[in-house]
């Protein structure tokens, strides 16, 4: 433990320097005095005695220096001295210091903000114990061509896998949906619920803080209704009452007994049923947890009923690949032994990755973009630092001549960069707190784990590391340059001439080229994102969203019942009829319509078409989206009718008629005319065959990215529990919304209205993620362009200022102004063109990876690529023209007299 004692004594010495110095001096004086005395007793005179004493002692100054080095922490003291010196020097050029610190602060602030989001959404494991063993479990449908589609879980398949698997420790199956709650008897609201097998909390490793978790008995048929509240749910519905356990909460009108309350850290992960299939309710935060009671269909159906999500916990030490292989094998064996008409596989994805899967590409892209901006900023700073190092060459030469070691010279310059970086980093971290809030305000609301985004400890560590990395990036080159200073040459040479060596010019040009290259890549990516976004919002949607107002109504009350009750069927039908009539009565209404799924909320109610006249294997049946609509839907949405006829009021008596979209017609009927053809029943629990009565145009009604194969069936055949009413009116939505709400609650005050807004707003929100990406990328692209512009300008302006004398001579010798302008511009052309070329090559590589993030935009989109390059060249020309003109306007007399 010696070193600890030594370190402590050395550290202590740092703070008692004056005292210790005085002590040492006195001790040394005593030594000399004692020696003199002894020498005198030997008969020397005063002078001789002193000389001999000093002679025997050795160099006093050296001893003192050695002693001090031994005593304190010389490295630390030296560093402190360097820092003091650097700070003094920076204060002498506040313009430079402020520019550098501000640039760094903005750059580091931006990167740190984006990293906060990346960290929370993509990197941070969930706050469950052993989070790396949690996986999302889905089934796979293997099509005839070998294509594999991820699909949600079937209950029977899940139970079989859970029983047979040796790699899975435990697994839970669940559904997420919205339920209507009205704790005060007021109009209800829709809250997110998770209905899960009773082992949900055990699989996740979560314990209720109050009451108990589910037991198996809770999930048996006929068991009493029980509910576990999330912490937020407990706060919302019981105001955090510690006696909430045992009380009753009405969910969808049914009384439920509260049996437990979860802790504040428990947030249920947002898991999609399958990629591309999303329920709007999944995005709601889960406030309530209910045990899942399997129904007859769950227990018996091997085909269809793929309606569940599942989370499994792997056994310790089992790899993902092992578990995947085992489940795949079990599934395939089962497919064969049970003679299923489809081929099934299974797929596990780590929970963190699965939750982020929809956004990880886009977020990494943003992170890369903001990183590139910081890199460009660092290159700018490196250029500034280089110019300063060159200006300080004679100072460096003096230091070297006086014996400063190479290490000391490099350290001094690196210290300057570090001081700047730390100041910039600290300011940047402070900015990041604001940046995170800005990002959160702009970010699409359905970004998973958004509530976890904050400037946390890992983010701060990242930010600190980033500052130091930045210092090294922009400080290393100028620091190494001071090694090359030959003291003699530098001292002899005129300062400015030494500065403008060929070498320095080349380094600066290369840095400009690097900057331009990064900027070109970033600009191309940005313009592609903008092109992609504009294509997404401007293309033909097949429906007209303007002047339409939308109200989604959830019929989650006992009188609307569940699948089986006949009375419930009439209640729903009557509610729909009365609402349509009431909305029609509102002033200024052109038309009203009903559809079963709120537009732009993704693919839902996915089924397959089978034709009795043309049977195919089940996996080859076209997948379609079923929508239950009224006759007003097609005209209200202004969807063109291609052939046949629309649903009419006269179909009410025999509602087994369907309208199909063009895509459905193509996929199910090939070249045949579908009108008049029969298909198998699509109505739940009703095998009545249906007749195709018309074909309508394809729409992007589920999401602007894709058209979908649609089947529209009159709501008279089946009325679902979620109804979306559309009102077309020339009156503004703001005026209509309160009237619509009043009309709906006049019919039934106990229905929930989770969505009530204009259709345009709904369209806008559906592309929020794309807009966010385009917007943020545009910001980064603009920043990069500005920085590159400053870079080109800075290098040229600096070089012009160094070459004033030369320009003066040229003018004196008769060179024209335009020739001088050309001379300077030519100096800019080389690095800019080189950078553009390299940037295009880099873009070629980078864009491969961006391709998947673009919507129907080729990565080599000529407008995006050409426009970006042109924009950059124009900007560079603008940046170059100012110093070029300054060069041309050099006054020869003044320039020559300058030295």
């Amino acid at each position, binding site marked *: 433990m010696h070193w600890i004692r030594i370190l402590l004594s*050395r550290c202590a010495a740092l703070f008692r320097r004056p005292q210790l110095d005085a002590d040492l001096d006195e001790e040394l004086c005593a030594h000399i005095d004692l020696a003199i005395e002894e020498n005198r007793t030997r008969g020397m005179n005063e002078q001789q005695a002193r000389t001999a004493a000093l002679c025997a002692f050795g160099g006093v100054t050296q001893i003192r220096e050695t002693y001090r080095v031994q005593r304190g922490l010389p490295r630390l003291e030296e560093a402190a001295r360097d820092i003091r010196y650097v700070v003094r020097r920076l204060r002498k050029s506040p313009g430079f210091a402020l520019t550098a610190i501000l640039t760094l602060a903005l750059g580091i602030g931006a990167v740190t903000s984006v990293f906060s989001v990346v960290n929370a959404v993509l990197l941070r494991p969930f706050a469950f114990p052993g989070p790396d063993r949690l996986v999302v479990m889905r089934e796979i449908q293997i099509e005839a061509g070998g294509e594999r589609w991820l699909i949600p879980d079937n209950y029977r398949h899940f139970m079989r896998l859970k029983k047979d698997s040796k790699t899975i420790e435990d697994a839970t199956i669940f559904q997420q949906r919205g339920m209507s709650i009205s704790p005060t008897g007021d109009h209800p609201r829709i809250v997110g619920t998770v209905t899960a097998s009773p082992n949900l909390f055990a699989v996740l490793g979560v314990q209720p803080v109050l009451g108990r978790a589910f037991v198996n008995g809770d999930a048996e048929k006929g068991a009493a209704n029980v509910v576990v509240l999330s912490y937020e749910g407990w706060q919302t519905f019981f105001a955090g009452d510690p006696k909430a356990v045992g009380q009753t909460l009405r969910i969808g009108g049914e009384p439920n007994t509260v049996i437990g309350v979860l802790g504040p850290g428990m947030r249920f992960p947002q898991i999609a049923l399958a990629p591309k299939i999303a329920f709007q309710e999944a995005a709601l935060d889960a406030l309530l947890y209910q045990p899942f009671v399997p129904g007859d269909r769950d227990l018996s159906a091997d085909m269809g009923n793929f309606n569940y999500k599942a989370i499994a916990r792997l056994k310790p030490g089992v790899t993902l690949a092992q578990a995947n292989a085992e489940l795949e094998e079990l599934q395939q064996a089962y497919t064969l032994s049970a003679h299923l008409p489809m081929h099934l596989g299974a797929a596990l994805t780590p929970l963190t990755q699965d939750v982020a899967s929809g956004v990880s590409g886009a977020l990494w892209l943003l992170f890369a973009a903001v990183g590139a901006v910081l890199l460009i900023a660092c290159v700018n700073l490196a250029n500034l630092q280089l110019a300063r190092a060159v200006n300080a060459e004679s100072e460096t030469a003096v230091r070297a001549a006086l014996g400063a070691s190479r290490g000391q010279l490099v350290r001094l310059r690196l210290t300057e960069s570090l001081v700047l970086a730390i100041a910039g980093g600290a300011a940047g971290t402070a900015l990041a707190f604001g940046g995170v809030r800005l990002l959160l305000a702009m970010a699409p609301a359905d970004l998973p784990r958004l509530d976890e985004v904050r400037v946390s400890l890992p983010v701060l560590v990242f930010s600190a590391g980033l500052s130091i990395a930045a210092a090294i990036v922009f400080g290393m080159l100028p620091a190494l340059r001071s090694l090359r200073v030959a003291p003699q040459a530098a001292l002899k040479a005129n300062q400015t001439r030494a500065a403008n060596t060929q070498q320095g010019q080349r380094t600066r040009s290369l840095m400009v080229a690097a900057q331009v290259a990064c900027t070109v890549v970033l600009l191309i990516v940005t313009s592609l994102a903008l092109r992609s976004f504009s294509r997404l919002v401007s293309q033909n949607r097949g429906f007209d969203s303007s002047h339409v107002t939308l109200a989604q109504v959830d019929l989650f009350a006992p009188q609307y019942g569940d699948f089986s009750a006949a009375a419930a069927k009439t209640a729903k039908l009557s509610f729909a009829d009365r609402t349509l009539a009431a909305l029609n009565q509102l002033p200024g209404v052109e038309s009203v319509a009903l559809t079963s799924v709120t537009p732009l909320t993704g693919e839902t109610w996915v089924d397959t078409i089978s034709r009795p006249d043309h049977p195919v294997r089940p996996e080859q049946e076209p997948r379609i989206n079923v929508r239950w609509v009224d006759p007003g839907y097609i005209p209200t949405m202004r969807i063109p009718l291609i052939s046949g006829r629309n649903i009419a009021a006269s179909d009410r008596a025999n509602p087994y008629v369907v309208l199909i979209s063009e895509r459905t017609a193509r996929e199910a009927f090939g070249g045949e005319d579908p009108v008049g053809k029969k298909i198998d029943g699509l109505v739940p629990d009703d095998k009545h065959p249906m007749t195709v009565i018309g074909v309508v145009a394809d729409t992007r009604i589920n999401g602007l990215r894709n058209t979908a194969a649609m089947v529209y069936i009159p709501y008279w055949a089946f009325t679902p529990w979620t109804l979306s009413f559309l009102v077309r009116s020339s009156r503004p939505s703001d005026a209509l919304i309160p009237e619509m709400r009043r009309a709906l609650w006049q019919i039934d005050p106990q229905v929930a209205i989770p969505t009530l807004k204009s259709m345009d707003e709904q369209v806008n929100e559906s592309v929020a993620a794309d807009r966010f990406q385009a917007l943020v990328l545009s910001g980064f692209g603009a920043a990069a362009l500005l920085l590159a512009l400053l870079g080109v300008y800075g290098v040229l302006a600096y070089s012009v200022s160094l070459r004033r004398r030369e320009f003066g001579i040229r003018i004196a010798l008769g060179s024209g102004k335009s020739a001088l302008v050309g001379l300077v511009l030519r100096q800019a052309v080389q690095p800019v063109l080189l950078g553009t070329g390299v940037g295009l090559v880099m873009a070629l590589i980078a864009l491969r990876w961006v391709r998947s993030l673009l919507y129907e935009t080729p990565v080599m989109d000529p407008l995006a690529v050409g426009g970006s390059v042109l924009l950059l060249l124009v900007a560079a020309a603008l940046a170059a023209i100012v110093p070029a003109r300054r060069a041309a306007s050099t006054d020869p007399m003044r320039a020559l007299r300058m030295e």
Partner: protein
Amino acid sequence: MWTIDRRAGVPENKSDVLQGTLDLMVLKTLESMGPLHGYGLARRIEQVSGDTVALNQGTIYPALLRLEQRGWVKAEWGISETGRRAKFYSLTRSGRKQIGQETENWERIAATMARFLAPAK
């Protein structure tokens, strides 16, 4: 001027003090002589070595500091035999223990060197 060339007046046949040996000399001297001030230590080492070691007396101070930092010696201000205020150094308990180990080390090195230097048989 205070600074005097270190080498001035050092006869050719004297050798420099080997790195690390000075520490042992100091410890050993303190063991046999009891508390001493720096000058006394330096003189004593010179006397014992029979003036064959080129010791700049000053180098004893960094060595003393090193030993102090390790906790092997401690220092106190006191009055010299001639009435001058001076810093007196004495062994600590762990310093006393250390002597045994350092001596062993040194003997091993010396023996090794002796084997190298012994005339080949």
